[in-house]
């Protein structure tokens, strides 16, 4: 019973790594990378939920009767591209922060904010 | 123009070979795609004698057959050295002359050097190429200049 849940555990481990990076790293870029790992773990979660044992990729072919669930694939496919686009926005924000403050370290940013 | 046509031909082969669906709709889409890709590349100015090396003679096939033999031999040699361990290698660097006239020839030569395991071309400066090799024999073999001569023969 238990070993059949390993996919979720992989996801959780990855997600927690991402979470940890987001909390601990002071550097905004590194935080974004943590966020990306977090995001990736969600993708993996969806895809693994969509997997059907013995199933094949959901493209019609002769001699294949069991297909994996196409719905999660659709969701994740779009989510990845959207993820890149939003990541670009986040990076742009970081770049502007660097421009305005001269640093991307969270602690230094807070110090400056307090001084003002 | 010549180059555009040859590129279009290559792309067409690529499409037909990849597609596997030969309905009129997809074929016309394919034709459109080829035209569009050629147009964009033309705008980017990447179509010229360098990207479409039409002028290279047919000997290039023979050259690559020869090169494949070479690659197999040197592969065996390198694999042997991998399993024998660090003792068996004696890395060295040498600067070799290039007798090719055109950039294209130099590129083919440098790539052939890199493709052959045991030697890597590190830098091209003017008419010399800097080569890093796993053993001194590899360098000695290149110095014989057989590969150099063969590549130079390609550009007529």
């Amino acid at each position, binding site marked *: 019973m238990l070993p059949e849940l390993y996919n979720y555990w992989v996801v959780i481990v990855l997600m927690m790594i991402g979470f940890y990076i987001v909390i601990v790293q002071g550097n905004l870029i590194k935080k974004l990378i943590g966020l990306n790992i977090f995001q990736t773990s969600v993708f993996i979660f969806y895809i693994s939920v969509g997997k059907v044992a013995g199933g094949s990729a959901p493209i019609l072919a002769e001699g294949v009767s069991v297909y994996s669930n196409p719905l*999660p694939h659709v969701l994740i496919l779009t989510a990845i591209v959207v993820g*890149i686009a939003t990541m670009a926005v986040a990076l742009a924000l970081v*770049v502007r922060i660097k421009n305005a403050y001269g640093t991307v370290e969270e602690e230094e940013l807070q110090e400056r904010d307090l001084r003002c | 123009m010549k180059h555009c046509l040859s590129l279009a031909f290559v792309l067409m082969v690529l499409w037909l070979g990849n597609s596997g669906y030969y309905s009129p709709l*997809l074929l016309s889409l394919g034709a459109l795609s080829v035209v569009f890709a050629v147009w*964009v590349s033309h705008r980017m100015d990447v179509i010229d004698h360098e990207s479409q090396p039409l002028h290279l003679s047919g000997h290039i096939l023979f050259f690559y057959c020869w090169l494949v033999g070479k690659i197999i031999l040197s592969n065996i040699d390198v694999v042997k050295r991998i399993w024998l361990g660090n003792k068996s290698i004696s890395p060295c660097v040498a600067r070799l002359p290039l007798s090719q006239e055109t950039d294209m020839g130099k590129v083919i030569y440098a790539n052939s050097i890199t493709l052959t395991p045991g030697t890597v071309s590190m830098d091209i400066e003017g008419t010399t190429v800097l080569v890093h090799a796993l053993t001194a024999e590899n360098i000695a073999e290149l110095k014989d200049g057989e590969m150099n001569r063969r590549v130079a023969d390609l550009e007529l």
Partner: protein
Amino acid sequence: MLAGIYGLLSASFFVSMDAVDVAFTEAAVGAGVFPLLMLTALTVTGRFEQTAHRRPRAAFFLVLVTGALMILGTLDMPAFGSPDAPAHTHVAARYIQLSPTEIGIPNMVTSVLADYRAFDTLGEVVVVFTAVVGVLILLTSVDQRQRPSPANAVETMRGHMILRVVSKMLIPLILLFALYVQFHGEYGPGGGFQAGVIFAAAIILYAMLFGLAKAEAAIKPSILRLLAAFGVLLYGGVGVVSFLTGVNYLDYSRLAADPVTGRHIGILGIELGVGITVAAAMILIFYAFAGYAAGRAEAE
């Protein structure tokens, strides 16, 4: 510095994880463009010194507890790959059974993406478009005063003879391959999203090798901006046309006499819209970052 490589690795890792899916293509694509974006951004922010971690002990504890709770939660989840998990028993079954006859194309992912769930996809495309607008607002407004004539913006690869020659050969092939992926999305893995990103990757390669200025001269940002909007409009337009034929928005069954052909046309149309928007969006984002980086280097 290491982090950039890590991004690349984690993306590759994801690729190797779920070897069975179409999402795969998408991951491969993400593996290419994401690190590039990351690196261009890093060029601007510079390499960084590590500051001391803030209370890593507490954070680690928090993470551990959350993880443990989540694992506890998974005990009730259906087993990996079990065919009667709730996820497979509702609409998905219907999609798999009916899509071959209703839509008439082999790739179910595309039929779900572009037909059954066309609304969702429209939303996603709009999000991508909005993101581009956001990036452009953030990064190009400064450019007006800072931006130099970008003539010598990116010159570092000039001396790379081998790279130059080989890339010249490859770029047209990549372009055609992107278009191939675009139009074969109904038969195999692929479609507008992937094609857009691959197309953009080709242009980005060109921009990296021959300089931003040449790339911007060949593929004008102003045209790209129009194209990004045009893609969304094309998508919406297909919807409006189907609206006018007397059925629901984005229901293509009456675009042709035969519903299956109609759907086929509709899917082609919106996939094209998706492809155009995504390609234009990715190129624009790259231009924005690279241009900004070049501007800063010049200013210093």
